[in-house]
């Protein structure tokens, strides 16, 4: 293998490792921009992963698996919405409950599928572009979910920055009282945002169990849902920066695998701590600037809203 091929392989793997983070962080970003903090990403992701795997294994159809993952993520998000938006429960506690519940329920549902084997999502080379040196294999010979994650991200960026509904969604997160006074249904908007977050987390889970490592194991997201939450802060609530952050984290986890593969005598367990430590360091560096966080974080983030008629 030439060095260029090796570089291309590493970069392509980085993109794949970053994709579940792109998807989950994108969903959470939209949720948070509407003023809702959903800490249940990990639970929604695991439910997406297990639902996607079961549906795909039972039907033999990967598309059906992806659809099931989307629905599972949305069902979990609906549960969160009923508690945190309709019943006004504490968002932090509800999100934690969602993560614990999702971890338990996914382990329970997936118990018969731990050793099941599934042909995962295969790469879809884009004719013409896939033959480009370096860029071809990295960018244009990926599976459809990798393409989808980037397209979704650009769409969300445009939606939030340019569209009318995006403006209303941001208003619900910055000043729900003002949005309500103008006649916008804040709670309904927040429901939409939370459901989108659930769908994206479910899709991120499906990516793990159907494409990245096509199998189901208990707790297979291994903290990626929490890293996605950190990524939203890292991206200072701006979609395009999510892409950068997710691929940096993808790179760190691929680096860790490559160091192991290259035969360095470094304990694998300690190398595996790298993505988590990187998350902490990056989070500390970003949060250090209080003004920047305050300027960018949605002003009503995590605060329950009850319309005063």
């Amino acid at each position, binding site marked *: 293998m030439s060095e260029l091929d090796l570089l291309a392989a590493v970069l392509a793997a980085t993109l794949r490792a970053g994709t579940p983070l792109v998807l989950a962080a994108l969903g959470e970003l939209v949720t948070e921009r509407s003023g809702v903090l959903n*800490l249940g990403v990990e639970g929604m992701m695991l439910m997406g992963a297990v639902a996607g795997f079961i549906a795909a294994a039972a039907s033999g159809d990967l598309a059906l698996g992806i659809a099931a993952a989307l629905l599972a993520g949305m069902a979990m998000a609906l*549960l969160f919405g*009923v*508690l945190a938006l309709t*019943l*006004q*429960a*504490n968002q*932090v*506690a*509800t999100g*934690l*409950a*969602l993560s*614990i*519940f*999702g*971890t*338990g*329920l996914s*382990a*329970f549902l997936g*118990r018969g599928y731990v050793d099941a084997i599934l042909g995962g999502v295969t790469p879809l080379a884009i004719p013409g572009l896939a033959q480009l040196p370096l860029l071809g294999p990295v960018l244009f010979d990926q599976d459809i979910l990798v393409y989808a994650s980037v397209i979704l991200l650009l769409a969300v960026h445009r939606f939030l920055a340019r569209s009318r509904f995006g403006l209303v969604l941001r208003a619900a997160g910055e000043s729900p009282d003002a949005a309500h006074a103008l006649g916008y249904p804040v709670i309904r908007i927040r429901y939409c945002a939370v459901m989108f977050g659930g769908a994206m987390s479910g899709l991120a889970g499906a990516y793990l169990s159907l494409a990245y490592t096509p199998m189901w194991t*208990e707790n297979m997201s*291994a*903290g990626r849902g*929490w*890293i996605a*939450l*950190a990524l939203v*802060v890292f991206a200072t609530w701006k979609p395009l920066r999510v892409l950068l952050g997710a691929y940096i984290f993808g790179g760190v986890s691929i680096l860790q695998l490559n160091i192991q593969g290259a035969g360095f005598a470094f*304990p694998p*367990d*300690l190398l*595996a*701590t790298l993505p*988590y*430590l990187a*998350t*902490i360091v990056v*989070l*500390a*560096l970003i*949060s*250090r600037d*209080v003004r920047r*966080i305050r300027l960018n974080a949605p002003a009503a983030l995590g605060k329950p809203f*009850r319309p005063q*008629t």
Partner: protein
Amino acid sequence: MMLPRLEQRAEAFWVARYLSPFLAAALALLCGGLLFASLGYDPLVAFHAFFIKPVSSLYGLGEVALKASPLLLCALGLAVGFRCKVWNIGAEGQFTTGAIAGGGLALAFPHGNGLWLLPAMILAGALGGMAWAAIPAFLRTRFNTNEILTSLMLSYVALLVLSYLVHGPWRDPAGFNFPQSRQFEDAALFPVLFAGTRVNLSCALPFAALPAVWVLLERSFIGFQIKVAGLAPAAAAYAGFKERHLVWLSLLLGGAFAGIAGVDEVAGPIGQLLPNISPGYGFAAIIVAFLGRLHPLGILFASLLMALIYLGGESVQVSLGLPLAVAGVFQGMLLFFLLGCDVFVRYRLRFGPGAAAASSP
């Protein structure tokens, strides 16, 4: 149409505040019954296997105490933080570093047979947990970093460090290459209190911690500061209560308690270091703290219930072949129902048009 509506109460309804944990437990049981029925088991048989059989012997009652005590310790520490909205959700990691520190001491003194060894291990465990909790405390007070994410990330790190230790430097050379440390010597193990059970001296520790936490929360000036900081942060700041002090206090206390719980576990029922020393006690303790209304006595009862859920999960695994994850499903449902039932603390259910709806066009 006569849709039920929620109407805000003028003040919090204290009856609902104390009733909602019971209502939540009842609803979780109901849903659990439906779950068992949907799997094709007779709910009554399953309930018997889940809740009655594990505690129908002295040994079983001892197991409840053994499982409740780490949950109680962790949850007591967490409750202090949760009261002032310091969300330490890394008790699992602090439990693990406590076990590493305490267990490491036991391994370092294989021939230590003095009475000093166990107290020293408890102290080491507390320090190990505190050290791990100090990182999120430092990052939050110095760099304004969200402690939810940092404490959770550190839990993954702690578990990997433990895995590294028992796979590498601390592996038992005579252990047939299994990832486990040497068995601790008798001097490094908590003595069993009642013959026929596994209840050991460490089960007494939470009962020393419980009154101390009660005094701290309910009868001390610091407890008052914690309460004010949680209910009205602006008022706390105006009164000159130092937020950073409360962050440090609650994380260090939570870390110390979780660390001691870790030592209790490895120097108690386990007796050595293994890659998996906790069946999620640190996370279940979050539920225990909420279910117990962040009050020491409530937490005591909640920890007993949670211990029973753990045991029930093991019991149905053995007798009905159900997966252990059933316990996790129960735990999650319990917290959901609690959060849902809590709505009645602040709101009342009204049918028909109310005053607000009638006045608006």
